[in-house]
C-alpha cells in the first residue's frame, strides 16, 4: 500500500517502534481480522513458582516465566526466566509507549490498599501470580503486542541482559518532554472528535461505573459471608455441647453438629473461591476501564496536535514547508492511531465479553457445587436417622 513508504515511524514522544513490521493502517486492520484458534496458537506462556529473594537493601519476589513456542523469531522453542513485578511494569510501559492507542491489559496493582494485606502474604502472592499470568497471556494473544521485541526480550533474556536492555529505552528527559507535550495537548483540547470516539467514551464511562459497582457488590458479598461464617462456626459446637447432656438425643445431636461443621467448611471454601477467582477478574476490568480512558485521551491528544498544526499552517507565514511536513506527519499519525484504536476496541470487547462471561459462569458453577455439597451433608443425616429409627424400632412409622 502507498502508505508504507511515507509513514514516519517517529511518534510524538520521540520514540520509535520496530519499523520492520508492516505499519500501514490497512495492513494492521488485516492483522486484527486474523482469527486465533487453539490450532494456530503458537506461543504458550506460564507464570508460576514464586520465590522470595533477600538482599541487603530489599526483599522481593520473583516468578518463573516459562515460554513454549514454535515461532521462528525465537532462537529456541522453550525458555525459562525469572522476573519480578518491576519487570512486568517495564514491559507494560514499553508496550504503551510504542502503541499509545492500543489497549494493554492491566497489571495487578503495586500495593493493596483496601483491607491492607501484607505484601508477602501467601494469598496475596498467589493472587498476584494469577494476575501476572493472565497479563502475559493477554499480551501473547494480542496480534501486535505478541510480536513486540520487548515482549520477546522479556520472555527470553537472562536477568543481566534484561537490565541492560531496559536502560536503552527513551531517556528520562525525552519522557519528561513527552509529558509536557501531553499536558499541552490536553489543555488545547480536541475540537472535532469523530462521533464514534465520543460514543466510545460514553460507553467507557458507563462501563466503568458498572464494573466498579460489581466489584463493590462482590466484595460486600464476601464480607457478609465471612460474618455469616463467624456465627455459623458457633452452631456446631453448641449442638455438640448439648449432646453431652443427653442420652437418646446424643447421637442425632452429635450428627447435626458434624453436619453444621461440614457446611461451615464448604462455606469457607466458597468465600475463598469468590475472593480468588471472581474478584480479581472484576478488579482487572475496573483497571481496564481506566486504561480505556487513558487510550481515548491519548487519541484525543494526537488529534489535538493535528488540529493545532493545521491551524498553525493556516495562520503562520514563516516556515511553511516545515510546517506542512509536520502537518502531514501529524495527519498520518492520527489516521493510524484512529484505525489502531478502532480495531483494538472491537478486539477488546470480544475479550472482555469472554472473560466476564466465563468468570460469572464459573462463579455460578461454584455456587451450585457449594449447595450440592451441603445438600449431600444433610441428606446423609436424614438417611442416618431413618436407618437408625428403623433399626431401633422406636419410631412408630405407622
Amino acid at each position: 500500500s502507498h502508505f508504507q513508504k511515507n509513514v514516519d515511524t517517529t511518534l510524538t514522544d520521540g520514540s520509535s517502534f520496530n519499523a520492520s513490521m508492516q505499519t500501514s493502517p490497512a495492513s494492521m486492520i488485516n492483522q486484527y481480522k486474523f482469527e486465533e484458534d487453539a490450532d494456530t496458537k503458537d506461543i504458550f506462556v506460564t507464570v508460576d513458582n514464586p520465590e522470595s529473594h533477600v538482599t541487603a537493601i530489599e526483599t522481593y519476589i520473583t516468578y518463573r516465566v516459562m515460554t513454549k513456542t514454535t515461532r521462528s523469531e525465537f532462537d529456541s522453542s522453550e525458555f525459562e526466566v525469572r522476573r519480578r513485578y518491576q519487570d512486568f511494569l517495564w514491559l507494560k510501559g514499553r508496550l504503551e509507549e510504542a502503541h499509545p492507542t492500543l489497549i494493554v491489559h492491566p497489571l495487578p496493582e503495586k500495593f493493596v490498599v483496601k483491607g491492607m494485606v501484607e505484601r508477602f502474604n501467601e494469598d496475596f502472592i498467589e493472587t498476584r501470580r494469577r494476575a501476572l499470568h493472565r497479563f502475559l497471556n493477554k499480551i501473547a494473544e494480542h496480534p501486535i503486542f505478541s510480536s513486540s521485541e520487548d515482549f520477546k526480550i522479556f520472555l527470553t533474556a537472562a536477568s543481566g541482559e534484561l537490565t541492560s536492555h531496559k536502560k536503552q529505552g527513551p531517556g528520562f528527559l525525552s519522557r519528561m518532554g513527552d509529558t509536557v507535550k501531553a499536558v499541552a495537548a490536553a489543555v488545547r483540547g480536541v475540537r472535532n472528535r469523530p462521533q464514534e470516539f465520543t460514543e466510545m467514551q460514553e460507553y467507557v464511562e458507563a462501563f466503568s461505573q458498572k464494573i466498579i459497582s460489581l466489584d463493590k457488590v462482590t466484595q460486600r458479598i464476601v464480607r457478609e459471608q465471612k460474618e455469616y461464617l463467624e456465627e455459623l462456626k458457633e452452631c456446631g459446637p453448641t449442638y455438640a455441647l448439648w449432646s453431652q447432656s443427653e442420652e437418646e438425643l446424643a447421637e442425632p445431636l452429635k450428627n447435626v453438629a458434624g453436619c453444621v461443621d461440614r457446611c461451615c467448611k464448604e462455606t469457607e471454601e466458597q468465600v475463598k473461591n469468590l475472593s480468588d477467582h471472581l474478584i480479581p477478574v472484576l478488579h482487572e476490568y475496573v483497571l481496564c476501564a481506566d486504561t480505556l480512558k487513558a487510550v481515548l485521551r491519548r487519541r484525543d491528544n494526537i488529534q489535538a496536535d493535528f488540529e493545532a498544526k493545521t491551524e498553525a499552517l493556516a495562520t503562520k507565514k514563516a516556515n511553511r514547508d516545515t510546517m506542512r511536513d509536520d502537518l502531514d506527519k501529524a495527519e498520518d499519525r492520527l489516521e493510524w492511531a484512529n484505525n489502531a484504536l478502532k480495531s483494538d476496541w472491537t478486539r477488546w470487547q470480544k475479550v472482555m465479553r469472554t472473560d466476564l462471561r466465563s468468570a460469572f459462569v464459573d462463579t455460578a458453577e461454584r455456587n451450585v457445587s457449594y449447595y450440592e455439597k451441603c445438600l449431600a451433608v444433610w441428606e446423609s443425616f436424614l438417611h442416618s436417622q431413618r436407618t437408625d429409627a428403623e433399626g431401633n424400632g422406636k419410631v412408630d412409622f405407622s
Partner: protein
Amino acid sequence: KQDASPPPRVPCKPMPTKNNLLDSRQTKEKRSFCMVEKGTSLLKKMEISVAEAEKRTGKNAVNMQETYTVYLIETRPVDAASEGTNPVPDSLWRRYSEFELLRNYLLVTYPFLVVPPLPEKRAEFVWHKLSADNMDPDFVERRRVGLENFLLRVASHPDLSSDKIFYSFLTEENGWKETVFETGFQAKADSRLKALNATFRVKNPDKRFAEMKHYGDELQSVISQLLRVRARAADRLYGVYKVHGNYGRVFSEWSAIEKEMGDGLQSAGHHMDAYAASVDDILEEEEHYADQLKEYLFYADALRAVCRKHELTQYELEMAAQDLTSKKQQREELATGTIRTFSLKGVTSKLFGQETPEQREAKLKMLETQIEEGEELVKERNAECEEFVKSAWVDIERFKEQKDHDLREALISYAIMQISMCKKGIQVWNNAKECFSKM
C-alpha cells in the same frame, strides 16, 4: 364408647411413613407441632384448635384504653367430623392472660407434673428483621400456633386432660375466671412461689431428682445459647442473600449499554433478584424450628419446678423429722434430769433454781403430746414425699420420652429445611449459569 371409634384426631400433620419422611414435612401450612397420638378420653371426644386471632380494644382494670389480642378456641366433637357432616364448632374467645391463669392453676394443682409451657410472652432471641412487637401479625400468628399446641399438650396428658377447670376453659366463655378463683388456688399459688424461691438445704434429696434438676439447668442454658447463635446467623444469612439483589440492579443497568451481552445479563439479573427474595421464606421456616426449641426451653423450667417441689417436700419432711428428734431428746433429758441440749430454760432454771416436780410433770406431758403430733406429721410428710416422688417420676419419664421424640423430629425437620434451601440455591444458580453462558 364403642371400640370401633376412630383414633383421636389431633389436628396436627400426619405421622410420616417409612418412605415419605421427606415429603410429609414439606407441606407449608401453619401447623402445630407433631405429637404422638395419645388416647386420652378428652381427645377421644373432641377436636381442639385455636383457629383465629383478633385485635380488641377495651377498658382495663384502671379504666384505661388498651389494645389486646384474643384467640378463638374451637372445639368440635370427634364423631360428628368423622361422619362427614361438618357442624359449626363450639367456640369462644380467650386472651393470653387467661391462658396464663389456666397454667398457673395447673401448676399449683399438679405440682408433681411437668406442666406444658405457654408460648413466650414477649418475642425474644429475635434477629433484626423479625419484629419484637407483640402486635406484629407474624408474632401473633406464631403465638396462635403456640397456644394451640399448649392446649393439645394439656389435652393429651393422661392426668391434666381430665381436669375440670381445663375443660371449662375450653367450653365456658363466661364466668370461667370466677370458677378458677373459687378453687382458692391463688393462696396456694402465692405460697408456692415463695417456697420455690426460698433458699434451703436438703440433706437427702432423691438422687434422680437432683440429676434431673441439673439436666434442666443444662438444657435451659444450651438451648438459650443455640437460639442466640441461630438468631445471629439468621441475621447474617439475610444480609448475604439480600446483597445479591444488588447484582440484579447492576446487571440490569449494565445490560442497557451492551449489545450482545444485554439479554444474558438482564435475565441473569432476574435470577439474582429471585435469589435475594428467597431468603424470606427460608427464614420464616427457620423461625418455626426456633419455636420448637423454645417450647423445650420453657419445658426445662417446668421440669426444674417439679424437682424444686420435690426438694421442698423432702425439706419439710427433714424439718419435721429434725424437730421430732429434738423434742424426743428434750423429753429424755427432762426424764433423766441430764441436760445435753442447750436451752435457755435450762440455763435460767439453773440460775434461778430448779423447777418443781409439778412443773416438770406438766412440761413432760406437753412434750409427749408434741411428740405424738410430731410423729403423725413425720408420717404424713413421709407419705407425701413418697407419693410425690412416685407420681412425679412417672411424669418425668413420660416427659423424657416425649422430649426425645419431639426434639429428634425437630432436628429432622431442620435437616429437611436445609435440604430445601440447598435445592432452591441449586436451581437459582443453574438458571443464572444458563443466562451467563448466553452473555
